């Protein structure tokens, strides 16, 4: 057994943090390598940890087929925005430094089960996966690419919503991306939306909910308004499973909950049904 649970110890920073992942759900200590080799899934409780955009792209693509596109499209500071802790530009540059990505979505071409697809994967570590003008532009270009090459569109979302530092223009990306994925669907191509943990706010309320097929992973957080905002509004406690993938499925808004290990095979099977 390569994982263990520390009994009763209050959460102190473990001495060898670099070597261990602590499962946020069951508190098991899992060797980092084993955690990564297992697709960032807890071997003890099956908790599906968050993936970086590149890990997600690799998980879904046939080995070595993912090729990044539109990397040159990055953020834009249309508002010259600054808040109490400084200018937006500094924060977004820090996110670029930290993640190695230049926007909150990674886009490119890939093959899945031998089928050429247009693939996007959001990175929650990049400013909470927020939807900025660069994000919207990459999605629009990815949609155009899918249409030009008659490829299915697959987008994995992971986002807290619109990027408020880009103000109203971030809100407008909801309209831009919704129209862009609509064009793909109208062109007779499939759009598979994979809602990953977490997908909320302006992203759940735009392209992420608009898939021909909306799939998600176990216990993923998906919703529009935040739990605390709702509890403050209605002055009631919400059920524990509120806004989980399972809750969404029960209420009719997710086509299927798919284990991460099965995700690629599931999408490929759908594409086979659609004649690819």
């Amino acid at each position, binding site marked *: 057994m390569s994982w263990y649970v520390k009994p009763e110890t209050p959460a102190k920073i473990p001495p060898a943090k670099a070597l261990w992942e602590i499962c946020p759900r069951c508190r098991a200590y899992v060797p980092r390598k084993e955690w990564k080799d297992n697709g960032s899934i807890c071997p003890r409780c099956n908790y599906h940890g968050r993936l970086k955009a590149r890990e997600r792209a690799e998980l879904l693509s046939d080995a070595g087929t993912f090729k990044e596109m539109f990397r040159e499209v990055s953020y*834009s500071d*249309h*508002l010259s*925005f*600054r*808040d*109490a*802790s400084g200018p937006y530009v500094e924060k977004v540059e820090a996110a670029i430094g930290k993640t190695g990505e230049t926007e909150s979505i990674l886009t490119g071409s890939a093959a899945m089960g031998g089928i050429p697809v247009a693939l996007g994967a959001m990175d929650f570590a990049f400013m909470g996966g927020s939807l900025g*003008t660069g994000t*919207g*532009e990459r999605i*629009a270009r990815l949609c155009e690419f899918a249409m030009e090459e008659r490829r299915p569109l697959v987008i994995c979302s992971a986002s807290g919503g*619109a990027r*408020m*530092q*880009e*103000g*109203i*223009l*971030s*809100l*407008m*990306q*909801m*309209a*831009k991306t*919704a*129209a*862009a*994925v*609509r*064009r793909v669907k*109208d062109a007779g191509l499939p759009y598979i939306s994979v809602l990953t943990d977490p997908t*909320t*706010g*302006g992203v*759940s*309320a*735009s*392209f*992420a*909910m*608009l898939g021909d097929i909306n799939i998600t992973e176990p216990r993923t957080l*998906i*919703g*529009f*308004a*935040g739990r605390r*905002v*709702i509890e403050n*509004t*209605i002055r*009631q406690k*919400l059920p524990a499973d*509120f*806004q989980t993938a399972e809750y969404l499925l029960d*209420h*009719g*808004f997710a086509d299927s909950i798919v284990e991460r290990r099965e995700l690629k095979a599931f999408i490929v099977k759908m594409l086979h049904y659609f004649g690819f």
Partner: protein
Amino acid sequence: MAKTSKAAPRRTASAGKAKPSAAKSAMDVVKLARDPARPHIFDYIREICADFTELHGDRLVNDDRALVCGFAQIGPRKVLLCGHNKGATVEENMAANFGMANPDGYRKAMRLMALAEKFRLPVVTFVDTPGAYPGREAEERGQAEAIAKSIEFMGALKTPVVCVITGEGGSGGALAVAVGDRILMLENAVYSVISPEGCAGILWRDGAKAPEAAAALKITAPDLKKLGVVDSIIPEPAGGAQKNPKAAAAAVKKAVLAALAELDGIAPADFPALRYGKFSAMGRFA
């Protein structure tokens, strides 16, 4: 301690003196946009529409009072009119959730927009909402899906769409009925991705910094016109629309009819591509 208490009042006083009465801060405009005395949807309908025939319900679960829809005669034009309803009395406020729509509201609007498209009637929307309703049932019935679908649906409508931001344009709940060919905005309306209070709470960690957030977010009509989000600004009577609702409504009517006239002659099938072009240009950089 002594230092801050010395500095703070001085700053306030000089800001107050230096500011001529004409230059409103963004937060001043937010307050005007939210003023309960500002004309509501039914005030506009009374002043603008020779006829308004309200139609109810999403044919699924409910009739959402937060979003009012019906066919209307505006001057020489027959249109579908959809607008947020904040309510004029306490009872109406409650029934309409202060203009915060549930999924049922957006689904009702989509149902009727499809009908307008079928009979080649333009769609006119009036936007005045703090945002979509954050409630348990709203989430259960798919608030995110309803807003997403409405945004997508309006983008693809094969009929002219004119949107007027009359008061508060609150985030996704506003955009859900504001995807149009012409976006008009009253002089003292605001339109924002997040409320100044919400933004201040997150980025300033202090809701009281809402005035700073309001200024930084650039949510007033002149700022939004500069950013290319709004096509034209509808002037309000001196002191704001609430000082003279009749004059405000007359200006709205004139602007809506002018916008509809600009869209005459466009083939219905061309609207989706034109709208995509319009919205995909927003925030695009060379």
